[in-house]
């Protein structure tokens, strides 16, 4: 369950940063990304997938969240 810092890049994409691993990846898809809710399965550009319970209202970036590794 890595702690992940998510910030918005200048081009609008979300940057997924795992401090422990010094891994910086752009988020390619988010399962639920609406006005009311944000979360679910998150896929990164390198193909790895993480999961977080959908949050409502959507979080304000940058924020540190605790993700689970998606199976």
């Amino acid at each position, binding site marked *: 369950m890595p702690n992940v810092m998510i*910030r918005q890049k200048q081009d609008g994409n979300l940057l997924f940063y795992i*401090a422990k*691993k*010094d*891994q*910086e990846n752009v988020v390619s898809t988010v399962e639920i990304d609406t006005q009311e809710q944000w979360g679910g399965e998150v896929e990164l*550009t390198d193909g790895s997938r993480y999961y977080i319970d959908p949050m409502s209202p959507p979080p304000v970036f*940058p924020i*540190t969240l605790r993700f689970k590794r998606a199976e």
Partner: protein
Amino acid sequence: MSAMSKEETEALIAEVLEVYPEKAKKDREKHLAVNDQGVESSNKCITSNRKSLPGVMTIRGCAYAGSKGVVWGPIKDMIHISHGPVGCGQYSRAGRRNYYIGTTGVNTFVTMNFTSDFQEKDIVFGGDKKLDKMITEIDGLFPLNKGVTIQSECPIGLIGDDIEAVAKKKSKELDKTVVPVRCEGFRGVSQSLGHHIANDSVRDWVLGARDADNSFETTPYDVSIIGDYNIGGDAWSSRTLLEEMGLRVVAQWSGDGSLSEIELTPKVKLNLLHCYRSMNYISRHMEEKYGIPWVEYNFFGPTKIAESLRNIASHFDDKIKEGAERVIERYKSEYEAVIAKYRPRLEGKRVMLYVGGLRPRHVIGAYEDLGMEVVGTGYEFGHNDDYDRTIKEMGNATLLYDDVTGLEFEEFVKKIKPDLIGSGIKEKYIFQKMGIPFRQMHSWDYSGPYHGYDGFAIFARDMDMTLNNPCWSMLKAPWKQESTEAKAVAASA
């Protein structure tokens, strides 16, 4: 020698790895790579931030070096206690040339060495009492200090001293900032963890100090310079450019920086991050807690400076954008003259770098401005995010080496035969004796500054002075030189 192809570079790596035992070879293999700009993420081609192999010559430092030497050390109006045996502080004292303004020993203390000088008795009975007494003494002897940091050396962690308790007690007693830093040298694999620990201690003990105090007058153009250690005056030559374009530099982290500057940083509008490796942690924290965005910039060489100034300006209004253009225009004739003078003398020369922090990628632009090519680069203690940023800067089929060992570096140099090497003092004399011009790029070989337009002129001069020094043609002893005359004599005999 012309540029190597990908296959040739791969063959070179394989050849160098040949001498290692099987297990070591397997490990080192992962740290050496051929650059391929097509690769998206560096973890596919290079492994970094791993423990060095026992038995190889590594150039890395320890967590204490990262905290006391890099992040905390340059903060000028605080006293940094090297808490533990005397050597760690004494042998690293004043070596980094973090310039600062002030009277040393009166209101600034950077080049001085404060140590608790642990003896057997302190190891056996604990050093907290000594530390307590020491902080009281320091405050009596140097009343103008703004605070004290306790930089732990290895034994502190091993014997389990409670420096946090001492810090809290003394802080209350003296009404000054006292920061305990748990940067024992055995933590982590290199100085990189020391940076992180130091950043975290700034976050926990200093940064929030003025959150409730709004008396500081802010402007919409407040910025802070983060991760510039003012080596040879670097931060000053950067600061003038920023001020000229209309920004107000509130804080310098940490070269020529002070405690109050650090406390005021959460009030700025934008954090400008130069050394990503050592200060990205605190920048990320400020972004999350205070909503201050941060940008990475690069002030080596006119191309990158112009790029960075425009990027920084894009976060502000038109006044600053015009300011950036004005600054670039103003220095144009100056840097063009530098390039016109030195480029013909340096054109086509090939450089190999092996340094730490930001330089393995940041200085590439400056060399390219002088017509030189960087054919190999590597970080002492970089992480994958550093290599992600490096891949784009380096040419295809050039060498990347992480935590390179003495042997590998020498062998690479023998095969690639670069015209110039930039690395640390421990490498300097080996390569000079091999007949290769060398610059010590950790503290600019006692020169500098290298940042900004002013720094670029010095950078170009230094590179020329090293590369085109007449001494390189005199390296062979006269009796070893095969002159045509000697040959003729030998033939007639």
